[in-house]
């Protein structure tokens, strides 16, 4: 086994890639699920090993096909992307464990294996984006994950899923193409696509117009992919009408990976000094981020569909992450990475819990779930834990995020930001309270008299994810240590 260790970066992506066609060949839903779960667990184990190795021994580089960079495609793992790999693969595995019952209910019979094929392909894409050290390769994996997620969203039961998927397809393609234009302009000026090589070549030509244009295109393209306000319009419908498992997986990971790429391009490739010193990226990110915090939360309050409410809340949370990035300080990047991790946990738990409710009452509308609190106590426990974490109540993961975010804002002497963060958290209190009130204090609807707790196969992963929100609110060692180390590497703009 020891001779596998140098190949871990390749295996991280290739194991899920190999599993996708196997799922298609399997033909049966159950078999495809086993293959997908095995691949996703293997990817999680790989990510853990990589995170451990890179945290202790430094950067790991892998040359695809034995071609040396900058000519060949290089995979590079440092603490920053190992952190993302760990988040993406472990959430994917948890949601896969959760999936069989919800797939049986929500996906048309005979298409379950296609669902798992697309799901594992999406995972391949997300892992690939995070691990690659080649700018063009990012685009390829971005499209792998996007195309499979359009297909996954379209598998949602309602017809609105189709229009949502189409809208996402148009917006996502424009975003990816913007990114492609940016990479093309960089290639035109530098003659290289390798990220480390780009980093050394850009400073000499950083004021030339193509490089400025490239920076703008890449930032806008990634912001579109990350659903940064006001480019978030595709997100609410996509998450609201996708199958439950897909909502949970994508809400927790897809936009986070785009934000990671944004971090990588601004801090490692262009350098913080260029992006925030020569160019006004601070304001370019700060203003939409603050608007997102308020517009997202405000829209969430008025949603009648809870999945849509959670999706709007995601828009607000992406605002917090972008706000932290815009501070361009070590503390800010740490806060961003911690919130990427914690928000993944919250939204995975909450969307999984919504899936449990949908499984029983075939709806996620707030008036349909009135009074369910007594009939589905464990699902409700998960919702309350996730909701508290979303608010940032002490002893939950969300509190840790807010704590680091506030500290970072104070460190940059932006005390008014702290007020804004507190105000937008109040808005979150309103929509989370609406949900809790409907579940516990409203008269139970007679239609739901026979409703019982969700099946154990869905409940256990949901509770585990909810428990993780509490656990990482108390024992913060692992995420904080990794985020701090990663932020330090990113701020130093270290050459790989």
């Amino acid at each position, binding site marked *: 086994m020891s*001779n596998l260790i140098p*190949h871990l970066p*390749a*295996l991280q992506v*290739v194991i899920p*890639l*190999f599993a*996708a*066609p*196997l799922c*298609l*060949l399997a033909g049966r839903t159950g078999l495809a699920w086993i293959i997908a779960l095995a691949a996703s667990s293997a990817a999680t184990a790989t990510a853990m090993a990589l995170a451990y190795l890179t945290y202790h021994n430094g950067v790991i580089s*892998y*040359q*695809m*096909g*034995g071609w040396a960079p900058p000519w060949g495609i290089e995979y590079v793992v440092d603490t920053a992307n190992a952190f993302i790999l760990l988040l993406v693969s472990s959430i994917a595995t948890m949601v896969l464990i959760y999936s069989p019952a919800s797939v049986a209910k929500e996906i048309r019979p005979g298409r379950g294996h296609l669902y798992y094929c697309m799901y594992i392909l999406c995972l391949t894409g997300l892992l690939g984006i995070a691990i690659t050290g080649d700018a063009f390769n990012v685009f390829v994996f971005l499209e792998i994950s996007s195309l499979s997620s359009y297909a996954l969203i379209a598998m949602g039961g309602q017809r609105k899923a189709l229009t949502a998927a189409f809208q996402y397809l148009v917006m996502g393609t424009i975003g990816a193409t913007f990114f492609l234009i940016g990479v093309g302009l960089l290639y035109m000026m530098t003659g290289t696509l390798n990220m480390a090589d780009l980093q050394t070549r850009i400073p000499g030509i950083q004021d030339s117009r193509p490089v400025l244009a490239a920076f703008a295109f890449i930032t806008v393209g990634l912001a579109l992919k990350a659903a940064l306000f006001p480019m978030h319009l595709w997100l609410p419908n996509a998450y609201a009408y996708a199958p439950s498992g897909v909502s949970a997986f994508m809400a927790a990971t897809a936009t986070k990976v785009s934000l990671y790429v944004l971090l990588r391009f601004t801090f490692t490739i262009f350098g913080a000094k260029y992006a925030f010193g020569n160019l006004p990226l601070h304001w370019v990110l700060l203003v939409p981020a603050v608007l997102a915090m308020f517009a997202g939360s405000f829209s969430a309050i008025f949603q009648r569909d809870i999945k849509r409410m959670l999706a709007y809340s995601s828009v607000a949370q992406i605002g917090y992450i972008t706000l932290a990035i815009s501070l361009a300080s070590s503390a800010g990047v740490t806060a961003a990475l911690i919130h990427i991790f914690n928000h993944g946990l919250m939204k995975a738990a909450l969307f999984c819990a919504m899936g449990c409710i949908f499984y029983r009452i075939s709806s996620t509308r707030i008036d349909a779930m009135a009074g369910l609190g007594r009939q589905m106590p464990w699902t409700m426990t998960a919702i309350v834990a996730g909701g508290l974490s979303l608010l940032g109540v002490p002893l939950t993961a969300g509190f840790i995020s807010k704590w680091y975010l506030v500290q970072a804002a104070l460190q940059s002497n932006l005390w008014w930001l702290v007020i804004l963060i507190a105000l937008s958290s109040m808005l979150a209190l309103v929509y989370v309270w609406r949900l809790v009130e409907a579940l516990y204090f409203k008269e139970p609807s007679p239609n739901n008299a026979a409703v019982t707790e969700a099946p154990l196969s869905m409940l256990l992963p949901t509770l585990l994810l909810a428990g993780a929100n509490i656990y990482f609110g108390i024992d913060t060692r692992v995420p904080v240590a990794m985020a701090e180390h990663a932020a330090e590497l990113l701020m130093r703009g270290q050459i790989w």
Partner: protein
Amino acid sequence: MRHHRVLRIISKLLIPFIMLFALYVQFHGDFGPGGGFQAGVIMASAFILYGLIFGLENARKVAPPAVVTKLVAAGVLIYAGTGYMGLFKGANFLDYGALSKDPVAGQHLGIMIIEFGVGTTVAAAMITIFFLFAGRDR
């Protein structure tokens, strides 16, 4: 299309040559312009032409959709499997040099198999897309 004798005869004449050209593009790809993607599309166009002229039913008999779907997966498996061969031989993923004692011969062999996988997947995917769209008229 039963009455269009010209179309039927010409396409019957053309289809073998289209396929031959696809194979040429496929296997000449490592010496000149060509490769799996182009070859796959050309190969698929032969089947699509057949389907357009002789009807979807006949085309489905020639290329049963169940088999074509399996071929989409098979091509990717060939690609990834070749990559894994490099790992098993102790080199990096996708390092074809390790496939043979002579690295250059290994590179030739590797790119040949990889492109064959690409061609298979592309042709099968294109035929599947055609079947799916054409089969919806009802």
